[in-house]
């Protein structure tokens, strides 16, 4: 087990370094950074001054050395400055991280608390009305664009019924402002959880050891939750990488639709403004969070599946 976790940890770290390398190379491909300080004509600067700036920014070093310096800056939290706002990127990210974290946690809780039990219900009551409702919902959730769900939510609950605010987060913690964005993000995730839980529950319910447990008279509740559910959880956890990736997309979309002041809308604003440092900063934050979550999923995998724990 220790070996497994160590291997995953190394894989995660290598991936993070790889991701930063890709982002760095792309940011250099975007153009010579010198152009940000002096265009090719040089704003009347002579060659000596340009060379001085170049060496002060370490642009005369080989690319790999530049990367090392850039990475060292990254480790100290220095992500460069926004071209549009002329402020440190790290500061901008920090201001907005909270809003995204709140939305993400709320949406993830709703998706798990509703999606997984619905998947279990749908599998246990296979072929009944419950199953049809569950499967229809899963198909609906997977075929509907997230942004459209959000817009239709605004149309129904804000424009026609006037129950909920159509955008922004409000001051402090306003539950009203959370309902629509949370539901928008969680619908697709809920459908994903439901579908995966259902199919892996069905598979486990069909296995020999569940039949044996039933035959020896273990109670229905115990068969479902102890014997089946725990084994069925392995699959949702293994595909969690795909679920997280979809989740990041969902959050970004919902933040844009609801003008939610988080990292996703910051990232898109950077795309619209061609603000490359802000874009790379947000991408890096998302990638690191994403890899960290995947590592947590790997650890959960070990907790749930004893075969790995004892091997």
């Amino acid at each position: 087990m220790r070996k497994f976790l160590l291997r995953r940890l190394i894989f995660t770290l290598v991936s993070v370094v790889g991701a930063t390398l890709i982002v760095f190379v792309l940011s250099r491909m975007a153009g010579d950074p010198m152009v940000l300080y002096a265009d090719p004509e040089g704003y009347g600067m002579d060659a000596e001054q340009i060379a001085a700036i170049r060496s002060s920014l370490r642009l005369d070093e080989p690319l790999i050395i530049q990367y090392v310096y850039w990475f060292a800056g990254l480790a100290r939290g220095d992500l460069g400055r926004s071209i549009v706002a002329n402020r440190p990127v790290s500061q901008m990210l920090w201001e907005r991280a909270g809003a995204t974290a709140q939305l993400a946690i709320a949406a993830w809780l709703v998706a798990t608390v509703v999606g997984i039990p619905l998947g279990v219900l749908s599998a246990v009551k296979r072929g009944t009305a419950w199953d049809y409702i569950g499967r229809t919902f899963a198909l609906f959730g997977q075929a509907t664009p997230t942004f459209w769900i959000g817009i239709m939510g605004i149309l129904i609950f804000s424009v026609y019924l006037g129950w909920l605010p159509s955008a922004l987060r409000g001051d402090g913690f306003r539950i009203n402002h959370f309902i629509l964005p949370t539901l928008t993000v969680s619908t697709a995730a809920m459908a994903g959880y439901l579908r995966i839980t259902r199919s892996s529950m069905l598979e486990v319910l069909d296995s020999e050891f569940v039949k044996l447990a039933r035959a020896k008279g273990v109670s229905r509740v115990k068969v479902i939750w102890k014997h089946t559910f725990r084994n069925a959880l392995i699959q949702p956890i293994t595909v969690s990488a795909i679920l997280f990736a979809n989740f990041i997309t969902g959050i970004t979309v919902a933040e844009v639709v609801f003008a939610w002041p988080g990292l996703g809308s910051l990232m898109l604003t950077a795309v619209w403004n061609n603000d490359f440092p802000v874009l790379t900063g947000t991408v890096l934050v998302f990638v690191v969070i994403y890899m960290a979550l995947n590592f947590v999923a790997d650890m959960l995998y070990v907790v749930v599946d004893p075969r790995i724990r004892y091997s």
Partner: protein
Amino acid sequence: MATEITDTYSGPQSRGAKGAFSIHLRVFHFLRRWPVVPLVVLSVLVLTAIFAEQLAPHSWRQQSLPGRHAPPYWLDREWYEDRPRVQDKYILGTDHVGRDVLSRMIHGARISLLVVAVALTSGLLIGVSLGLISGWFGGVTDEIVSRFVDIWYALPFLLIALVVIILFGQSLLIMMIVLAMTAWVTFVRNVRAEVYSIKDRDYVLLSKIAGAGTLHMWIKHVMPGLISIIAVVATLSVGSLILTEATLSFLGAGIPAPTPAWGVMIAEGREHLRTAWWSSFFPGLAIFLVVMSLNFFGDWLRDRLDSRLRQLS
């Protein structure tokens, strides 16, 4: 008339009302067994895309000042009666500059299908060849391809797409490239697994003993076994590619604005939700119906062609 048909078709035990019920049941079972509804939706989509010019009732970019925010004709006739200057009847209404929503959607179908078709074909060619090579040769090649696929699969795609788009600008071509970048991975994984299981079958080994060349074995013995998995993965990919394209276009990072892509239409209509909900409602409904049909059809194809593929999602 209806009862006559029922009497002819119903079984010996069924009588009267029950017989009428059984034909509904028959239709229901037929619809459950064959993907009629999805196929109808998809054929309509393809035909609309091909004959967009002939089918669109209006121009997709003709703007009209008096006719802006016109509601769908069947929903609000009074609106049209109050405005004699609006000559045209818009079936799905108009957007904020008076462009016909239906005509834009029809042209949008063409754009979406074109982008997705090119992306899917290139993704398929790259993915299938890589899968074939890595499954067939194994060893170091396989290791490199598989690790690369693992890492690629593990990256949040939206982030890559945004970085590529900000670096190279927005255009149809970039959109196709970005979508191809997401399409190829699924092909590699599935084709590789399939090749792995085929290459040790007796008929392949015997053909090898008989002195067949690699290319001959690929074409004669491996490819036929790959067709069903490629068909299933391709069908299921189209739906997710359409969704991805729409999402990127909606976010303002996909197909650039005057082009009538569905995602762009929803984004534009969103600003005018209070006055003209139809300009973002109908394109979204179209995306939903198309993706739903593709998923249904893909699932059906998968179960039909190979029950071993049921795990694939």
